[in-house]
């Protein structure tokens, strides 16, 4: 059942030390910045963060990293022109990194949400990123066995939610949100606006409320 939270602090309450936290967004589009700020206040540490990037500038995810609260990052693209916080932690051996091809990252999250135990994927076969992974020839092509990435918590951003947690997104801010929403035990979403039940077009709902635990307008 979806609860409408009064504050972002309420939306991230109870995140335990050592949790795996899925963080939506691609660049700043869809990034749940207010929920990340609340997670910084909340204090959980020893986190594994799963996100496409590893933080930009000094705010948001980068600020969480800077506080030493993240043990490991699983992402597709940590290195960016303004990823100095991550870069420093990584070079000084203070953070673990698992690089996953972007599509495989999305698919492993989907698998976690869809009850798929593992899948064979051609991406990455014969590369550094498949080293140590089981492979199998299927139709003459080498496939890598990939396992789900399941979150304890997901923090995502969306455009509108109704009071049941049905979500719509805006343009490319959709990105990882709908997949991460299916892949975590507790899913918190920040939206621009909470609307009444019956307002959203049932044909256009992207994430049904069944996946959403906590909604906050922020």
């Amino acid at each position, binding site marked *: 059942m979806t609860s409408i939270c009064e504050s972002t602090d309420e939306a991230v309450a109870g995140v335990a030390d050592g949790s795996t936290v899925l963080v939506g967004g*691609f*660049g*700043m*589009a*869809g990034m749940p910045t207010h929920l990340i700020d609340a997670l910084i206040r909340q204090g959980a540490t020893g986190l594994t963060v799963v996100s*496409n990037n590893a933080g930009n500038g000094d705010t948001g995810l980068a600020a969480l990293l800077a506080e030493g609260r993240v043990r490991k990052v699983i992402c*597709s*693209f*940590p*290195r*960016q022109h303004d990823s100095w916080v*991550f*870069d420093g932690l*990584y*070079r000084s051996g203070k953070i673990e*990194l698992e*690089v*996953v*091809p*972007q*599509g*495989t*990252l*999305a*698919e492993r*999250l*989907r698998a976690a949400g869809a009850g798929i135990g593992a899948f064979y*994927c*051609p*991406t*990455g*076969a*014969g*590369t*550094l*990123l498949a080293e140590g992974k089981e492979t199998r020839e299927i139709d003459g092509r080498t496939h890598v066995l990939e396992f789900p990435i399941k979150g304890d918590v997901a923090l995502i951003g969306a455009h509108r939610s109704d009071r049941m947690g049905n979500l719509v*997104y*805006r*343009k*490319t*801010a*959709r*990105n*990882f*949100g*709908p*997949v991460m929403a299916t892949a975590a035990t507790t899913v918190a979403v920040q939206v621009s606006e909470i609307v009444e039940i019956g307002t959203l077009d049932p044909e256009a709902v*992207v994430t049904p409320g069944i996946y959403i635990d906590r909604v906050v307008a922020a």
Partner: protein
Amino acid sequence: MSAQASLGKAEMAALVARDIPAGAYVNLGIGLPTLVADHLEPGSGVVLHTENGMLNMGPQAHGDDVDPDLMNAGKVAVTELPGAAYFHHADSFAMMRGGHLDVCVLGAFQVSAAGDLANWHTGAADAIPAVGGAMDLAVGAKKVYVMTTMFAKDGSPKVVPECAYPLTAARCVDRIYTDVATLEVTGDGLVVRDLFGITYADLSARLAVKMSDGSASS
């Protein structure tokens, strides 16, 4: 053949654009390949895909058209063309990995004579690995075109017998568009299709790869 000069970036982009069939679904990688968009014929019906969840992406956005929710894979603000569709990351990469894109154009550090691609990692010990969607694109698109200068700044060729850098994907490249030559990767090795500002003999002397001259016949 060597009478004309080597190509500038815009000429290379125009050459790639000319080879993209009308109505094709195309993903243009970050960097040099992005320029191809400017050279597609308006009536060609070519549809651009951006892996962060959109088809029918329009040109870069400027001024008031900038929308922080509408970015391309390089995190540059873009626009939406009529007939656009948005989808989430798992769907976007399913589209890619499933072989539905006709062409992707990628940059390269190195391409081998067999069509192996290295474009994500210099292999340097202190480099922070970051792959993004490169492996997914290289594995998924029906045709993979590489667009790059033929020689690195130190004069070393990027078309090589075997990639020294870590691979993005093995045997994935179909064509190589460079400033001095266009090459086709075939079952019988590399075939030079066009030469710009260099003779076949000179090119052959500078590259350490086995190839054949198909430029006369075209």
